[in-house]
């Protein structure tokens, strides 16, 4: 993810709430503290496929905002 970001690819990391702190720490470790993070409700595993789709749909507007923000 960090490597993609460094290569100029617009990048956002999708993670659920319990992993947010770790994601922030890792972004700092890899020297990209401002890496865009897109937080979705936990969990992602062990839920019906329709619920996974619902999470993706709910995250989409945020993803679009991040993409637009990066473009500016």
């Amino acid at each position, binding site marked *: 993810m960090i490597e993609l970001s460094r290569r100029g690819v617009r990048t956002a990391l999708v993670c659920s709430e319990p992993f947010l702190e770790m994601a922030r720490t890792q972004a700092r*470790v890899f020297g990209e503290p401002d890496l865009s993070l897109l937080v979705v409700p936990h969990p992602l595993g062990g839920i019906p496929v329709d619920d996974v789709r619902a999470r993706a749909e709910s995250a989409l507007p945020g993803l679009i905002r991040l993409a637009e923000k990066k473009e500016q």
Partner: protein
Amino acid sequence: MSELAAHLQLPGAGFEADDDFDAVNAHCLERGWTDGLPIVPPTRERVEHMLAYCQRPWNEPVGALAPRYGAATPLAVAANAVMAGCRPEYFPLVLLALEAMCEERFNLYAIQATTHVCAPLLIFNGPIARELGIVSGHGALGPGGHANATIGRAARLALLNIGGAKPGHGDMATYGSPAKYSYCAAENEAASPWEPLHVERGFAKEASTVTVIAAEAPHNVNDHESVTAAGILKTMAGNMSIPGFNDIFQPVSQPVVLFGPEHAATVAAGGYSKADVKKHLHEHARIPFNRFSDENVERRLRKRKKWVDAPLDTLVPICRAPEQLTIVVIGGAGKHSAFIPTFGDTQSVTRALARADGRDALSIAELRR
């Protein structure tokens, strides 16, 4: 004054605390620098003493420990080895184990950060393990063996303090593992009917090696009745045929079969080589589709092209090929063995203790500075 001694006096090279066991422990515990147990205060003198068995430059990392990618310099590792209670002569083994964990195929980043319960299992082979008294017989996996307890603990403290594997922050293991305190043993080569692990992997018998394996805690296999190889292997295969561990789903997985010496002797007496045991267990430790949940069948097993339309009595092997099984003989008397699943997306790494000239070290004295 040596360069090291001068470095240790620099501001920031260490920390100041009252010269008191309880004060140092309170300081370290408060900062999250321990595994929760008391530590030996890593004083300048103790750290220097630890480095007496390090022929590498004390400030050149042997690797970067994920997920923080902290530099595992001999100096930093030595501080953790002191805290763990290691004797200086154990230090080359701690360093070697960490170096092995930094090989890419071990996949340390994922092992440290995962929600899975794996911990690096350190298995030592060769004469130096015997010289240092690393326990391979009764209680090899604990408690009691000083070298086993402190070498494994030193590796854990380095993974915690240099690697940043703080539970809930850099180590997301759902419920952790008792194996994360220390997970270290020697193979019982004297009681094994087969070639030792390091010889099987191409090292000289006289070499002293560590093998690191990202493993779950052991699950016991009790068989007090079988008197034949077929019987022991049937019980073992039965214990291995369970649907909820990682190895089944990962192409490179190397699940571990730990034989107690008595079970190993019975199996070998039936004419089974290690390769034969692997072949037999791979053929018999299989799980039918219908023992997996419907969701696991649909969302995992059927992702493999050959199983898209497979019937529900299709048998799933616990790893892709017999050679992927790892067999070791550990323990003392008794009719017990163990199955040890792994993280799955990892390959174990074996490395030998080498002298400065690159030759195998035959004694720990050869590794003194």
